[in-house]
């Protein structure tokens, strides 16, 4: 067993000491081993420690537990990356309260360029699409996409990055032995293969609500900028955006329909000065990253589409024409084009199968980009 990791794991289990104080402890004593060995008078020398902190540092139970936890961590093939390790992300070290230990599955790189993509769990098809496309482009451009592996936007950001063939990192709010949400078990495997899943929480930590804001500070801490796609007025994604501002990161926001409840957060961000993003190019530009990525793959699809268009029937063209302006409900399509409901019904499916339009929940149809 790597005994030199034991003091680090022990420190990370102490729940009464804030991350900030843990960082100060390390700075004060040079490394975790010295904290482990420190005597009471030595600890008293640290001005920032309260009596409660010192009590916990002296509690033998925690030291005993730490051994078990380290053993389980190693058994689960989880790496322990300390703030003094060379793999520890450089950019994260400089935030106000960096985690002194990161538990990781997969591979961490110390100085990769990351962008965080966060957003609502209850996302719309539009949001999911934006997340996936943005992540895809970023990943093509060699940027690592960081997110939280939650449902909705987060998951799709990871999907997009993996599809783009780049690296992606998921920061969890629970121990790495727990998959939350459960349905993302396959996604988690893929992320480990194509990057890393990390957490500051020790193994066995449940996904409790208060873990998530702390998790968000790591997402923003590791990123050069945070892109928020769909957030309600009181959303966890806005907490991430706040952290990002505190940490001096750029905040990007994708605008949404002003009437939709889960666009309100992002639209407010834009009002307050976040950079409005309509595509990944905006992010590249803001970060002064020369985007030598190839966006040509889109053009190929375009030409395929225009080829299809020539073969469309009259009614199909009519439907495409009105969908160009807005997404419409099937009833409205029938009304506006004057085509009877039975024909609209079948044409829409046929067009969907041709890949011209997509159906979103509520029997609303929109053009495929």
């Amino acid at each position, binding site marked *: 067993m790597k005994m030199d990791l034991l003091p680090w794991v022990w420190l990370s289990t102490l729940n009464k000491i804030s991350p900030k104080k843990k960082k100060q402890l390390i700075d004060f004593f040079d490394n975790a081993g010295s904290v482990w060995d420190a005597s009471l008078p030595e600890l008293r020398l640290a001005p920032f420690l309260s009596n409660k902190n010192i009590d916990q540092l002296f509690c033998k139970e925690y030291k005993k537990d730490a051994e078990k936890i380290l053993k389980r961590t190693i058994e689960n093939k989880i790496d322990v990356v300390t703030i003094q390790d060379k793999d520890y992300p450089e950019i994260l070290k400089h935030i106000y309260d960096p985690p002194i230990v990161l538990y990781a599955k997969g591979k961490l790189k110390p100085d990769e360029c990351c962008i965080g993509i966060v957003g609502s769990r209850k996302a719309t098809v539009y949001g999911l699409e934006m997340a996936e496309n943005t992540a895809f482009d970023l990943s093509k451009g060699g940027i690592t996409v960081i997110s939280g592996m939650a449902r909705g936007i987060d998951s799709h950001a990871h999907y997009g990055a993996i599809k783009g063939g780049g690296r992606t990192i998921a920061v969890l709010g629970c121990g790495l032995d727990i998959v939350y949400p459960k349905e993302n078990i396959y*996604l988690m495997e893929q992320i480990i293969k194509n990057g890393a899943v990390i957490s500051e929480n020790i193994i066995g930590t449940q996904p409790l609500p208060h873990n998530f804001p702390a998790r968000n500070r790591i997402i923003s801490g590791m990123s050069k900028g945070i892109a928020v796609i769909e957030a309600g007025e009181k959303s966890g994604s806005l907490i991430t955006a706040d952290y990002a501002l505190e940490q001096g990161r750029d905040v990007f926001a994708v605008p949404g329909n002003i009437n939709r409840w889960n666009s309100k957060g992002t639209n407010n961000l834009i009002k307050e000065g976040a950079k409005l993003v309509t595509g990944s190019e905006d992010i590249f530009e803001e970060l002064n990253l020369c985007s030598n990525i190839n966006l040509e793959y889109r053009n190929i699809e375009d030409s395929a589409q225009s080829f299809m268009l020539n073969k469309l029937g009259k009614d199909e063209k009519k439907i495409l024409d009105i969908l160009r302006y807005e997404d419409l409900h099937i009833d409205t399509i029938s*009304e506006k084009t004057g085509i009877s409901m039975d024909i609209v019904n079948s044409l829409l499916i046929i067009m969907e199968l041709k890949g011209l339009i997509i*159906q979103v*929940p509520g029997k609303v149809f929109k053009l495929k980009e």
Partner: protein
Amino acid sequence: MLSKITSCGIIGIEGFIVAVETDISNGLPAFDIVGLGGIAVKEAKERVRAALKNSGFEFPLGRITVNLAPASLKKEGSTYDLPIALGILAATGQFPLREYKDSMFVGELSLDGQIKRINGALNAAACACESGIKNLFLPIQNADEAAVINEVNVLPAESIKEIFDHLTNRKAIDVHQVDVDTLFGDSHSEYEDFSDVKGQANVKRALEIAASGGHNCLMIGSPGCGKTMLAKRLPGILPDITFEESLEVTKIHSIAGILPEGASLVTKRPFRSPHHTISNVSLTGGGKIPKPGEISLAHYGVLFLDEFPEFSKSALEVMRQPLEDGNVTISRINASLTYPSVFLLLAAMNPCKCGYLLDESRGCICSQHEIDNYMGKISGPLLDRIDIQIEVPNIKYEDLQSIKVEEASAEIKKRVNEARKIQLERYKNFKIFSNAQLPPSLIIEFCQLDSKGKKILESAFKKLSLSARAYNRILKVSRTIADMEKSKNINERHIAEAIQYRSLDRKFQGSRVKYGGSL
């Protein structure tokens, strides 16, 4: 001294002949009724005694034994009051004859000798007809109902005295008759009209298809979008009820005692909408004194279940077998009964617990877990029996304001009738009468696709990730759509439209769930 009077008992919806045998012998005065009578039958004693006395007849002093044969079948209700009273009169020689083989008597007695309304008069008439009995004496309130059976002379009576006068040739009772054709000729529809519903063209179309092919249907939409309003109008576009169907429905309603007074036949398709707190037994039928449940009362009509997931899980599951077989067999300690239950199931539900999952402007506050739970209340096998699933959008203000004249139910019904006619003709040798009832073996025979249709179905399954159970449903619904266009073959467009009605099979259902996120 023995007498024999014929009456009628009921098992399920079928009547059976009951011989009421009365024996009066000397001995200590006693009055016994044997032959598995229920409490109402046991209590007949007191009613009969008082009714006879108050009608001016003599109640014999002696040992009276009444047997209701066959003695092995349970008998419930108050229909036996009249035959028991007549049996006593016959046994004591107050009647010219001791046996009336060609007449059947049913009716409840009140203490003053009046005859009161009973349940199941039509069933009794049908039973009399089958057994070759010519005359049926019954309460005057039931006359219209029973007179539908033309082969039997229906002789309504208000009091026991009138029957006595008739049998002793003092004053004859006139045979009651109704004209069945005028009953059906009444074209006035009591259902609300589809023209009241503004907009919702897509849902209306789906309901028209459901009515044409007898497909079960599920509507999903936010609260207040008009699901109930649409549902209430569905029976108005169902094909006209036939005389045979009407007889069967009336029999069930007659037993249940829900036939309105003075009504002779149920000439409109029934529409039943039980509340979601309903128990399993009231849904399927049964109980200590067996009665048909809601699914049988909706026979040949519509069973509307609003707030579908709120129904108890077991209540929903008990519907599975009746939905498949078209009848429900209830086995209890006393008997095993079969009630018919061919109905169109129309269910309505919110997309999630709070109801606003599909609402664009209003956020849903349910957690993913709650949404999954809510949808999970409807089991796969039950969903499997629902051919058409449609999303009902919120109605727009412009639509409410619109002065556009919407199509009336009568118009839609005309088309539905035509589509049904084609199906009846096609399936006349197969004992089914609508596309919804097609078993897999016949689907292969009647739902042949051309190559284009096959191709579109194949690509739909691949691209739209439809579930396997959707396959047969789509074929059946597309068959109906083809019938509505009087097209012999199912083509590409019919298939495509049928796919539109599989909302729940589409993996993106619930917007935030499984949309496309595959690797």
